[in-house]
């Protein structure tokens, strides 16, 4: 049993088999520097809870190869529900998945963001993510010209 403590003091108990899904924690355990309670200073409780929820669900799937074929559809459905998040949580989760080194979660989240960007114009993308356009119109014009070859 491993205990993680979030930046705001919440603690979470995990079975070892779940804890090793978090590569960072796994490395700590292997290096022998994992103490009874592992602090996770970069991650808030509410986000850490979501991360753990994901890991618990995905650990079960790698357990039995036989059930794998059946639970694939299950997992996909669960994943697509899981990623229905507001942007703030989405990006907090990305940072957490990156820090804790959970590849499958990071891949899922990056794919989610990519799907939000795909096929949209820069103007639309800026609106969705609130990106400030710090180019002057002239600079933008210059960039358009610079990359024109790609759209011919």
């Amino acid at each position, binding site marked *: 049993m491993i205990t993680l403590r979030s930046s705001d003091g919440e603690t979470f108990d995990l079975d070892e088999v779940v804890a090793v899904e978090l590569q960072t924690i796994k490395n700590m355990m292997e290096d022998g520097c994992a103490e009874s309670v592992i602090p996770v200073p970069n991650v808030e409780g509410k986000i850490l809870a979501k991360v753990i929820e994901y890991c618990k669900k995905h650990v079960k799937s790698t357990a039995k190869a036989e059930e794998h074929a059946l639970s694939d559809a299950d997992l996909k459905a669960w994943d697509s529900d899981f990623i229905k998040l507001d942007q703030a949580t989405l990006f907090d989760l990305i940072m957490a998945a990156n820090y804790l080194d959970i590849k499958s979660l990071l891949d899922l989240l990056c794919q989610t963001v990519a799907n939000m960007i795909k096929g949209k114009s820069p103007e639309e993308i800026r609106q969705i993510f609130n*990106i400030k356009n710090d180019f002057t119109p002239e600079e933008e014009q210059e960039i358009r010209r610079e990359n024109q070859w790609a759209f011919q």
Partner: protein
Amino acid sequence: MEDGSHSGGSDSDSIDSDGSYSDRTHRDRSYRDGGRSSSSGSSSDDDSFDRRSVRRRYNYSHRPNSYREDDRISDLPDLILIQILSLLPLTDAISTARLSKRWRFLWKMVPILAFSPYDHHSNRRPSALVSFIDKFLLLRERSPINKFSVQLDYRREFRSAVDVWLYVATGNNVEEIYLDLEPICGGPYTLPKNLYTNSSLVKLTLRDCSMNPNAVFSWPSLKTLSISYNGELNDKSIASILSGCPVLESLELRKCLDVSRLNTMSASLKKLTIKSCDVMQISAPKVESLTILGFTEKTMSLDLPSLLHATLNFELRIVKKGSKDSYQNSGRLMTYLLETVNGVEELKIGTWCIQVLSVLEMENLTCPTTTCKRLILNTSFTRWDLPGIANLLRNSVSVETLVLTMTRGRKEILLRKKDGFKKLNQFYEKLDGKKYWNSQEGALVNSLQGLKTLKIIDDNLYNTYDWYKECLLGLLQVILKNARMLEKVVICTNKSSNYGSLRLNTMEVAQTLLSFPKASPSAVILYYKS
């Protein structure tokens, strides 16, 4: 002075940074968020400018996103943004250059380069794609390339261009190369010699690429190799390739018609896929998974002691159509194959093979017993499949998971009456699916004892007739009645199939299934839509 021709539309709101006001008709209409782009440095004190910018801000205030202040996405580390850009078509990634200064050059670091005519919306001509790739590689930052993939209608004149691309890719330590260069004009692309030896490649897929069959290949890191449409590689070439790939785990050959024997002592090769090649003999001590697909003309001999998974979804091309001999050949081949793979854990069988087993069944030739735990049948579930399915099921004594994937109907094996199949044809014509399964029940009882999971995948079956639905329900009835260990029945229907499906996800079917007596009281029936 300010240009007085200010029109009300928002697309004329952008102002040049140096404060000059050029003719608005030249303004690019897509500068819609001009309100955000504060002119750097030169803020005009002009009253009308301020009013306009207030108006602009007001225009944006009723858009839902404007109250959130943070741009969280730009705060992500470079590597993550690059990972996100890698998941986009390249033209989309390049468009992000215009988002903001932070994003301007990120596209140049994307390590996954996939080029195909389908990404390029406006211009599908091969020469346009070639030109795009040339320029892309020229402008890209010198940074690692994980994957380089090109799908192109190949013409001889592109040869030097492709050579250069491969040179750049290998120079950036590419790990995965995918080349699909279908020759349209002037013969296939010949792989440059410097690619015969490469130490960073982990995965290589070559389609329609010509290679010197007598060359020496050395790919010390290669784990996955797939070669298709190559008529020059022969047995010696394959042997040479295999000895040059000491860690190869998966080999796939498609339409390599000059390869007939695959003998290797490779300790790493675990997975072998053969599609539409005439391979007669395979001998590989550590291969765990064998897949035979497509068309073949030769019968085979297999020596695969470590085999755990076998997929037999192929068709033996009958050279002399209709002659009883050729059917006997097919029968013998299937019998031999099933004997050879009888120890595998998972057996997947395709519709032609099933129909051959049907013919055997009708001639009272039972198929060999297998001890597989998972049996997957890829079948069009027609009359000509049923006896074969019965034959297989009866002889699969240890099955715990049975999957029936109903695929698009193919033409049944042609059995002409004049070739001696008169009785068989009569049988088939009169075959009543539901009654057939009832008659088979006694023979199937034993095999059904260990069954825990049954899965039916209705994958766009071509047939819509009630016959098929009744027939499947007949089978399900027999199974439910006798499978004492049954835990679940899963029915997957294709989301898009309203037309051309068994329509198993109806209330009527559900109620019928619930009404069948169950030998296993805890069995559940689940429905999925994919």
